C-alpha cells in the first residue's frame, strides 16, 4: 500500500493518511452512535405508550336483558324515568340469589353508571320499546374492564384489589354464559370527557383542537406571510427593521406560558372574550405561532433566487407584481412547511391554554368557536392526573392519537413541499 516514492511530499501525505482516515472513522462512529441512541429512546417512548395504551381501544360490555316496564314510563318526560332502576332490575334477574343490600350494591357496580343513559338513548330513539323485553349490551364498569384486560391481579388478596371475590364469581358466571364481550371502543372516539373512564372519549377534545387550530391557522398564516413579505421585500433596511427582526427572533423563544398570560390580560380581561373557548385559545396560539411562521416565511423568501426577481423587474413588473406573481409562488412551499410545523407546535401546547381556562372538565362536544372546549394535550394532562386506574391506558391511547395527528401534519408538510417545490 505504501511504497516509498521518489516524491517526498507524497511520502508525507501517505504518512498522515492513516491518521486522517482514523479521524473520519471515529467521527462516523460517533454520529452513528448518536443516531442509534436517539432511535432507542424514541422506540422506548413509543413502546411504552403503545404497550400502555393499546388495550384502551377495546372495551368490555355486559349483556343484560331489560324489560322496559311501562309502569316506569308513566311520566311524559323520558329523562325522569327510572333508568338506573331498570338496569338494577335486569342485573338482579341475572343473579336472583343475591339478596343482601351490600351484595346488591356490589353486583350493580359491575355495570357502568353510563348503562342507564344508554337505555335512555335507546328509548328516545325508539319509544316502541316500552313494554318490551330487549337484550342490551351495556358498558362494564372500569374496574371490570381493568380486570378483564389483566390490569387487576386476581391472585392478590381480596382487600388489595378493587374487585371482590363475589364480583369475580359473578363475572366468571357471566363469562361462561357468553354475556361478556370485548369489542372495539367506539366510545373513545365519539364521546367527550367523562369522569367514568369507560365513558370517556377524545372526540370533544379533538373538536376543540380543530376549532382552536382553525382560528390559529386562519389568523397566523395570512398575518405571518404578510409580515414576512413586507419585512423581506418592502421594508427599508434600517435600524427599526433590525429591531423588529431581533424581536421576532426573540419572541420565537419566549416560553409559551407568557403568551397565555398575555392572552388572559388582553383578550379576556380587556376585550371581554369568553373564557375557555376556542376563540381565545386560538388567538393565544396565534401569538405563539406567528414568530415561527414569520421566520420560516422570511427564510423561504430569502431562498428565492434574485435572478427571478430581476427577470420580473427587468420586464417591467412592479414590485407588487414581482412578489405576487413570482416570489410568493416560489416561497409558498417553504411557508406552508413552516406554518404546518407551527400548527403542529400549537396542537401540542397546553401551558398557554391553562391561563385562558381551557384546562377544564368539559363533557359536551363543542359545536363552535365560542363553546367551552378543551384540546387534546390538555385532555391527556387531565386524564393523567385522574385517580382512576383505567385512565392510565386512556392517557396513553390519547397520546397515540395526538402523535398520529402530529405525524399526519408533518407528513402533509413534507408532501406539500415535494408537491409544490419548483426545480430549475
Amino acid at each position: 500500500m505504501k511504497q516509498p516514492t521518489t516524491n517526498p511530499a507524497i511520502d508525507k501525505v501517505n504518512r498522515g493518511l492513516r491518521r486522517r482516515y482514523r479521524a473520519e472513522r471515529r467521527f462516523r462512529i460517533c454520529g452513528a452512535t448518536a443516531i442509534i441512541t436517539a432511535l432507542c429512546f424514541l422506540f422506548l417512548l413509543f413502546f411504552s405508550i403503545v404497550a400502555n395504551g393499546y388495550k384502551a381501544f377495546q372495551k368490555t360490555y355486559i349483556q343484560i336483558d331489560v324489560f322496559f316496564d311501562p309502569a316506569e314510563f308513566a311520566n311524559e318526560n323520558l329523562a325522569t324515568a327510572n333508568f338506573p332502576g331498570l338496569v338494577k332490575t335486569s342485573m338482579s334477574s341475572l343473579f336472583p340469589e343475591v339478596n343482601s343490600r351490600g351484595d346488591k350494591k356490589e353486583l350493580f357496580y359491575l355495570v357502568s353508571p353510563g348503562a342507564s343513559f344508554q337505555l335512555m338513548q335507546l328509548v328516545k330513539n325508539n319509544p316502541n320499546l316500552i313494554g318490551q323485553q330487549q337484550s342490551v349490551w351495556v358498558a362494564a364498569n372500569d374496574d371490570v374492564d381493568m380486570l378483564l384486560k389483566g390490569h387487576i391481579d386476581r391472585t392478590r388478596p381480596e382487600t388489595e384489589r378493587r374487585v371482590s371475590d363475589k364480583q369475580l364469581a359473578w363475572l366468571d358466571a357471566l363469562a361462561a354464559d357468553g354475556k361478556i364481550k370485548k369489542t372495539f371502543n367506539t366510545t373513545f372516539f365519539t364521546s367527550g370527557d367523562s369522569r367514568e373512564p369507560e365513558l370517556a372519549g377524545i372526540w370533544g377534545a379533538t373538536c376543540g383542537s380543530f376549532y382552536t387550530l382553525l382560528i390559529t391557522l386562519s389568523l397566523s398564516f395570512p398575518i405571518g406571510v404578510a409580515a414576512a413579505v413586507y419585512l423581506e421585500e418592502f421594508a427599508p433596511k434600517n435600524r427599526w427593521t433590525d429591531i423588529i427582526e431581533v424581536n421576532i427572533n426573540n419572541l420565537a423563544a419566549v416560553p409559551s406560558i407568557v403568551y397565555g398570560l398575555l392572552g388572559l390580560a388582553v383578550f379576556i380581561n380587556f376585550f371581554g372574550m369568553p373564557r375557555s373557548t376556542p376563540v381565545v385559545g386560538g388567538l393565544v396560539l396565534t401569538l405563539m405561532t406567528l414568530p415561527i411562521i414569520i421566520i420560516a416565511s422570511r427564510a423561504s423568501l430569502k431562498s428565492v433566487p434574485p435572478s427571478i426577481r430581476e427577470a420580473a423587474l427587468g420586464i417591467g413588473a412592479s414590485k407588487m407584481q414581482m412578489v405576487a406573481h413570482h416570489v410568493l409562488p416560489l416561497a409558498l412551499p417553504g411557508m406552508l412547511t413552516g406554518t404546518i410545523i407551527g400548527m403542529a407546535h400549537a396542537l401540542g401546547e397546553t401551558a398557554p391554554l391553562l391561563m385562558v381556562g381551557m384546562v377544564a372538565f368539559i363533557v359536551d362536544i363543542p359545536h363552535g368557536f365560542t363553546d367551552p372546549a378543551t384540546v387534546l394535550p390538555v385532555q391527556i394532562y387531565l386524564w393523567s392526573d385522574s385517580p382512576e386506574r383505567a385512565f392510565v391506558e386512556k392517557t396513553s391511547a390519547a397520546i397515540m392519537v395526538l402523535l398520529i395527528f402530529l405525524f399526519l401534519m408533518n407528513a402533509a408538510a413534507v408532501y406539500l413541499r415535494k408537491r409544490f417545490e419548483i426545480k430549475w
Partner: protein
Amino acid sequence: MESLVETANPGVLSAAGKEEILSEATSKALHQVRETVGNPFVDNPRMTCREVNVYYGDKKAINNVSIDIARNEVIAMIGPSGCGKSTFLRCLNRMNDTVEGCRVTGDIRLDGMDIHDRNVDVVPLRARIGMVFQKPNPFPKSIYDNVAYGPKIHGLVQNKAELDEIVEGSLKKAGLWEEVRERLNQPGTGLSGGQQQRLCIARAIAVSPEMILMDEPCSALDPIATARIEELIAELREQYSIVIVTHSMQQAARVSQRTAYFHLGDLIEVGMTDRVFTNPRHQLTEDYITGRFG
C-alpha cells in the same frame, strides 16, 4: 429607421477632429486624467448619458461617464472584471434602483426624456428598455407563460388570440419558435441553456421595447449556443438598439458596431469596433485587448 453609422462616415461621428487631437497626447498623461478617448457621441441618439456617476454607499463605482447610444446599433461594453460595465448597463433601465445603497447621479435620457425625472415611472421605462441577464432566468412557468407574462401585466393585449400572436411572433424573432412550438405548455426551465437564454430574449421583446440591454448573455453557454445568440443579436439590431456587456473581445468584435472600453469605473475609450480592436488609441485599451491584463 436610420441605418447605423459606418466607420468612415464623418457625418455621424460629428467630432472626429477632437478624436485626432486627443490621440496626440501621451498615453501616460491620459492615464491620470482618464478622459474618454474617441468620440462617445452620435447624431440622433436613442439614449444619451451625461456625466453619470454611480455610488455604492461611499464607494464610487462609475466615474463621470458620458456616452450616446445610437438607433439600431449594437454597442459592446468591454473591460476587466469590476470595471463597472455591468453597473453602468443597469443604470440605463434603472435596475440599480433595486440595489440597496446604490445612488446614481447624472443625466440619462431616452429619446430626450430624462429617465430620472419625477414624472417618469420605472415600470413603463423598463417595458421600453428590455433586459437579458447573465444567467438564463426563465420563470418557473410554461414557455408560453414566460413570453406572455410581459404583455399580460402591461395590458398590451385584449384577448387570447392577440396574446398567442405576440407569443408566436416573439418566439419567432428569438429564433426559438420551431424548437418549442410543440411544447409551449412545458416549463421554460426544462429547456437547454441556450434555448433558455433565447426564451429570455423572446420574453424581453414581447413587450416591444426600444432598447435591449444584455448583461453577458453568453457567459453561461457553450460555443454553439453562443453562436446562435450572436446571430440573433445581429438580426435584432434591425429593430432595436442593443447594449451588450461582454467578457469576450471576440464576441464584441463579432456582434457590435461600436465598442466602449471601461476601466475601474472610467469610460476609457469609445470607437467603431474594428477601429478600437485594430488601432486602440489609449494605452489601457491596448493593454487589455492585447491580453496584457484583464
